[in-house]
């Protein structure tokens, strides 16, 4: 058994070139690789963080934004605990594409998934096309958390992933409290809740 209490899968999605790979690299390796090539298929990184004394392992799936990989990347949505939908604050096009991504989330992801909307590349101040409040409003309308980041300057990147990790940990602890130890007489009433969460954890 590995040394962690919770395991969460986080999937990054969004148009090609919005900086998904850079966000992941920044968080997992502390690097900003300039001239990052387009991701082929899906990349996979692991980072273990500590949330209030518990080791939490984050499995981060960095998906390709290009259309031709859609059928591969979509297969990862359902098992995700956290979804990060990224757009480029300097590109109206990537912002306009968000509704389509939300439709995909609706049709493929688990309905209880924790989703974040991320506006990346805030370091390119003058080139910004989407003001913060527009992104915020959009996120609010679709009941997502909103955060703006810069993978280049490492702004808010750790915060984004740690926020997700602590929210997911909190939810997991909450569910653990709701389900007491085994009680054979109670199986019928608890079945649903056991089944909906038991797959997420590794004790």
């Amino acid at each position, binding site marked *: 058994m590995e040394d962690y209490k919770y395991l969460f899968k986080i999937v990054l999605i969004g148009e090609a070139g919005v900086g998904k790979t850079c966000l992941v690299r920044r968080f997992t390796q502390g690097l900003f690789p300039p001239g990052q*090539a387009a991701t*082929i*298929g*899906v*990349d*996979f990184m*692991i980072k273990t963080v500590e949330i209030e004394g518990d080791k939490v392992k984050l*499995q981060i799936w960095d998906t390709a934004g290009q259309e*031709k*990989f*859609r*059928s*591969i990347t979509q*297969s*990862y949505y*359902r*098992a995700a605990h956290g979804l990060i939908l990224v757009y480029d604050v300097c590109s109206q096009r990537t912002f306009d594409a968000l509704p389509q991504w939300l439709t995909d989330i609706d049709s493929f992801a688990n309905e209880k998934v924790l989703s974040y909307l991320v506006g990346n590349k805030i370091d390119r101040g003058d080139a910004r096309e989407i003001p913060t409040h527009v992104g915020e409003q959009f996120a609010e309308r679709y009941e997502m958390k909103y955060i703006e980041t810069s993978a280049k300057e490492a702004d808010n990147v750790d915060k984004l992933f740690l926020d997700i990790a602590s929210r997911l940990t909190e939810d997991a602890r909450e569910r653990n409290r709701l389900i007491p130890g085994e009680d*054979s007489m109670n*199986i*019928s009433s608890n*079945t649903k809740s*056991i*089944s909906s969460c*038991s*797959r997420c954890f590794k004790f």
Partner: protein
Amino acid sequence: MDLERVQNLTDVSEMQKALEKLNAEEIDVDCELNTLLETQASLEDKMITLHRTLPNLQMLHTDSKQLSSMVSFTSTLAENVSSKVRQLDLAKNRVTSCIQRVEDILDLKYCTDGVQQALQNEDYEKAAGHVHRFRSLDENVLRMSEIASEGSSLDTSFRLLHESEDKLRVIVNTKFDASVHSRDVASIERFFKIFPMLGLYEEGLTKFGKYLAAKLSEDADRNLKLALHGIDPEDGRSSVIFADTITKLFEDIAKIVEIHQPLVETYYGAGRLVILVKILQKECDRQTRKLVEEFRNKRDFDLRVQQVQQSLMFHKQPAIEKPDSKDLDVLLSEIVLLNTRTELYLRFLKRRITGDFELAYQDEEKRNEKSSEVDKFIQSCDTSRLMQELIGNYIMMEEYFMREMVLKAVAMDSLDTGSPTSSMVDDSFYIVKKCVRRAMSSSSVDGVCAMLNHACTILEQDFREVLYTRVRAGFPSGFDLTQAYNMVIQQGKSSDTEKAKAQFISTLNNAEVSCDYCKQLKTNLEDEVSKLYTQCSDQSNAKLESCLSDIGACATRFKDVVEFGFSQMTQSVIKPRIKPQIDIFLSTSHNISEDDYTNFEANDPWVQNFIVSLDNMLGSFKDSLTNNNYEMFVSLVTAEITTQLEKSVQKSAFNRLGGLQFDKELRVLVGYLTSVTTWTIRDKFARLTQMATILNLEKVDELLDYWGPNSGPLTWRLTPSEVRQILGLRIDFRTEEIKRLKL
């Protein structure tokens, strides 16, 4: 002792003492004097010898002086000689380089003459050899000596050679082109070898590459045409004709690389193979594009993709024309083959180029840089891209195919007599396995991972949902007797209930078997992955591992269904059947006389009937449930019996004989249940057995023989207050005595 002190002496004894002392001193002095006189002779001898050696010393001094002057003279001489040798050496070196230069000049002359001669004779190898020699000379150095030597002639030589070099370049270029034109393979190779001698590495490889590419293009066009027109539907290979054709293309390129790699390495040096490969790859990209286009046309690929997309989008509407599963099956197999051939080919290219670079560069950093360049080249070539697009479509269609087939298996579900599970489990898992394995044979790691994810979704959601819904419908309750009665009265209705029962039981079995199947599927696929994907990067392996473990985790979801099903059964079968039997126990008195007791021995009031009824119930499920499920069923029945019986015991009243009767009944019951299970049941009855022990006591105090330090191997499952309560059930035990008991 001085004189003054002696003169001052007054006492006789003191005077005498002084005298004695003086005498002793005198003797000492005498002795000393004697020894000194004895040595006098030898000292005198030594003095004489010294006097004799004195003149010799003076001679030694003059000799030494002479020697010293001689040594310094020699040293000066040696110094002089060696400096001359050094000068000589320098002169010799200069002579050598001079000779070298003269030789170079002679060579130059020879080259100048030779080049012209060779050009005249059309001996281009020789001419190129001369030019190569000339190119290796340092022109500037030679020109420095121009003034000293016959100046103008050297200049002409250089001019002539430069001219010849240019001329040769033009000739080789045109001759090469002409040879290509006339398809003279020998001449092509001849001139291909001359390029590097003229320093035209890039040019030579490019020209040669273009020539090879053109040849490749002809062959590939012919093969494609053959494939398109020669499709014989009866031929076994017709369903994979495009995969076969692309394989031919890749094999041709591989052959070219194989044949020409040694040639390139010998004449052009290591590290230059990539120039040739890039040109060939360009042609390969062009051919692949053509082939994929034809593939899409002939196989109605785009139409099928569209159909699948539409069915996925509006899968509630049956009106939309669905692609035929059989056709889809064939098509999917061909796509997988196309991709796996491509992966194989690209891996070959990568290995060859990397190997070539490794020969050329020793520096680790440079190698890594080159290696990532190769990766980039291979990942971004059109052939890769085309395949990525195909695989993208493939995944969508394969998922659709898998879901359709699983749904079909569910729809065509049938229950064979004699089998505890119905056909949909085996069929569905077979389909899932088939689809994932097909994805595996594509060699695309991302494709496999995606299909593993989809397989999880189908098993966990679609397939499990079917089982869950069936289990939620519940097990039809009702007694055997009424059923038998119904069977006579209403044939139809009863068989409906029977059907519902059979379906519930088979679903329960299906879910239980699915747990195992998930784990088996995971192990099987794992084995296959480890065989097929041996050359994967760590990252790819981690991806595969993660997706595979999700398949294994599906088992838990099916276990939940089993548990839910059994909770349904507890409510509708176990409880209603156990309850009346336990009620009979409750209504049977355990406050009995001697006569009653003997009577019960002959005519059992409860337990025998209970066992018959239990045996009936267990027997009716034993054959229809899987082994694991049957064990689970027995364990639930046992749990129900113990809870109910405990409650009833606490509501009954006992006397000594009643306690004995209960103890007997319990033994028979435990004996029976032990005989129908493979695991130990006694533990479940521990509390009841202990109750029977208490109820069977002669008097209250006797309990202490079993309690506390006297309990021996027995572990009490009853609390002290429970023990008191049970003792209280014995009507012949006095309450004060029970209270007095120290527990």
